[in-house]
Structure formats: C-alpha cells, structure tokens
C-alpha cells in the first residue's frame, strides 16, 4: 500500500484542501493517521473509498475521543551562554490545548487486502460547535458506531440517517463518556472500599465520634 505521505500528496492534488496533517503516534505500533478538516472530510473519505489504488471499502470501526482543555508541559533542551561557555539547559514550555472532540475511522480494503488507513476529524470545541460530517453514506457499517459516539460523547453527525441515542435511554441528559461527566451521587454501602470508592465511602460514612473517656 502507499505510504501516508503518498496518499497525502495525491489527496492534495485531487482536492482543494487547506489543511491535511499526518499525526505522529509514539506508541509501539506507530500507526500514524490523517487529520482532515471537518468541512472537506466527506470528500476526502469518498476519495479514499473510490480511488483505484486504495479502494478502502471497509470501515472496521469508529472511535470517539474527548480532549478536554489542558495545559501541556513540554521539555525543550536549549543551548544557553552561561559565563562565556555554552551550556545545555532544559526548559519547560506550557501550552494551552483547546478542548475538542475527535472521531477516528479505521479504514481497510477488502478487495486489495490492505490497510488500515486511519482518518481523524476534530470538532471546533466541546460545547456548541460539535458538528462533524457523517460518513455513514459512504460506509454503512459506521451507522451504529456514529450513533454510539453521539450518545456517549455528543458529537453531532450531519447527514446521518438516524441520529438518536443507542445505548442510553432517550430521556438521558448529558454525555457519560466525556471526561467531565459527573454521575449523580448514588453511593451505596460497599463491604471492602478502596481507592476512589474509599474516598466516596468516607464521605457517606463519617467516622463515629469517639466515646468520651470518663475521668
């Protein structure tokens, strides 16, 4: 199969794209992915599916990721002149990452027996601009998984044929897989509490006041 760089150049030639990045992945598998802007994502996906050299006709799974706002600390080594001699100094740079929701598609080709090509899309933020194009019209198998991501993360897929909750009930409010979801406090007696449950247990079972010692 072509490398991601080759796919990227061919995509850039075929479609007028403003943003198309290759995201590195530092895990041992090292599977890199294509990050596309959400307005052109449908066209990119259609290209990947219909292109004669790729023919990615099978979407094996769709994943949702929640990236809340966070301060990211990165350590950078710098050469600094100290008393006339150059010295290596480590500096930490804090950058603020804006929150967003991400959807990842794993694409394979059944016909040419290759893959995966990993496609990522990101929403603008986590609150009001959470729209992404649905790829269900291209890969029918994405239907339930996109519904699940809508249900648990709150990504709204434009063009999805039947977008409603799939795992939670319809009356449910909120998106339980988001990092900041707080479930209602319904703690109950736990025989052997530990870790987070122990913290909860201590809140609900205050320590018994010590019996007064008679003088």
């Amino acid at each position, binding site marked *: 199969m072509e490398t991601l760089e080759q796919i990227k150049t061919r995509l850039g030639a075929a479609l007028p794209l403003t943003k198309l990045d290759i995201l590195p992945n530092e895990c041992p598998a090292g599977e890199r992915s294509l990050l596309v802007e959400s307005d052109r994502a449908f066209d990119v996906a259609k290209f990947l599916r219909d292109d004669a050299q790729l023919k990615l006709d099978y979407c094996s799974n769709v994943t949702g990721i929640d990236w809340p706002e966070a301060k990211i600390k990165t350590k950078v080594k710098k050469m600094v002149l100290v008393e006339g001699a150059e010295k290596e100094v480590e500096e930490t740079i804090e950058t603020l990452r804006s929150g967003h929701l991400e959807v990842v598609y794993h694409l394979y080709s059944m016909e040419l027996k290759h893959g995966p090509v990993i496609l990522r899309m990101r929403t603008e933020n986590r609150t009001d601009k959470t729209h992404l194009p649905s790829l269900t019209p291209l890969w029918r198998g994405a239907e339930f998984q996109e519904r699940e991501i809508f249900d648990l993360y709150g990504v709204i897929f434009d063009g999805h044929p039947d977008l409603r909750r799939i795992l*939670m*009930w319809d*009356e449910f*409010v909120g998106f*339980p897989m988001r990092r900041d*979801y707080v479930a209602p406090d319904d703690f109950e007696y736990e025989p052997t509490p530990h870790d987070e*449950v122990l913290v909860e247990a*201590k809140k609900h079972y205050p*320590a*018994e006041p010590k019996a007064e010692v008679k003088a």
Partner: protein
Amino acid sequence: MAERIFGLALTPEIFVMIDEGLKSELQKQGVYVTSLQELYNWGRANSVWPLTFGLACCAIEMMAASMSRFDLARFGAEVFRPSPRQADLMIVAGTVTKKMAPLVVRIYNQMPEPKYVIAMGSCAISGGPFKQGYNVLKGIDRYLPVDVAIPGCPPRPEALIHAIMTLQEKIRNQKLTGPDRPRHLNAEIEGEYPVPAYGEHDLEPPKNPEVWQPPMIKR
C-alpha cells in the same frame, strides 16, 4: 385457591402437619398419609418452570445448566418457558442495566402467581464490577423480591442447581395458611410491582422502598 379439593372442605386443620411417628408407622403398613399443604407444596416445588430470559454471560451458564451435562431436568425445572405467562421462576441471569430494569420489572409483573426470583451472579445481586458505573442497576433487589441470590461471576451451573434446590426447599416449607402465608394466597397484598420510569440520569424512583432499603452501616 379452590374452596374444595377432592371433595374436602379447605379448613385450616387440613393443612396441619401430621405427627411424624404416626406417619412412618402407617407407611410401614402401606398407608401413605400426608397433609394437603405438603402435597400441594410437593407438586409446586418439583415443577418449577423458569422463564427463558438471560441478560449477559450468566445466561450462558444457565443454558449449560439446562443442557445434558448438568441436566437441570433432574430437579423438575427443565421446562424453560418462552412466555412470562407460563413461567413461575424468573432467573435474573446477568447485568441489569438501568435501561433494561423497567422491562425486567414489567416481565415480572406479567408472570402469574405464585412466582419466584433467583438473582444469578454478582451483577444481578449488586451490580458487580459495574456497581460504581453510571448505567448499571446496583442489584435487581431494588425493584423485585429476590428469593435466592447466587454469588459468582458467573456462577457455575452447579451453583444454579443448588439455588434451585434451595428454592424448592423454600417452597416446600411455605405455609398455606396463617399470617405468613405466601403472597399469592393473600388477597390483601398488591400483586404488581411499580415499574420505574427513565429519569435524566437515573431511574425514577431509584429503588422500591417497599422491597429494599439501603443498609445503614457506621464506620
């Protein structure tokens, strides 16, 4: 219950147990004597018909228990009924999610009396490994009167057989008259259990206080 069985008037005396010594003495002479209560309970205990109803992996063990290797049929409980109208035992086999709980209660309401519930596995008892989660009911005993609870994740088929034998023991010892008679012989007790509604985060109400109260333990 019919007022007359085999031409006998159903007076409280007919349910009273017979003296054990007299009974065994008569048996030696070839006369078998029993009380109507014993006969009635014997019949019910040996033909417990469970509902074909599984929610998660515990249901696999339930199926195994009813198949030839473990052979639940030896205990008169082999006829798994696909309709709640014909069943008298509900084996809650598996995780009860909050989305599923109202349906479980509704199925239970559709079963005719006398009916019994076995909570099979950690999830059905307490929510199991999912207890602190947002979507799993912390035990079916919040809505239904559970007769026998089987611990395990999942319990072995032997454990389910043991639970059915325990339930049979319970049925055999039920008294048909008096204040502690079973629910189906007491017209004053409401037969239906309230079905919870879906709320914004949890079920409304989160428990049936008539069936279950949270344990209060001081630490």
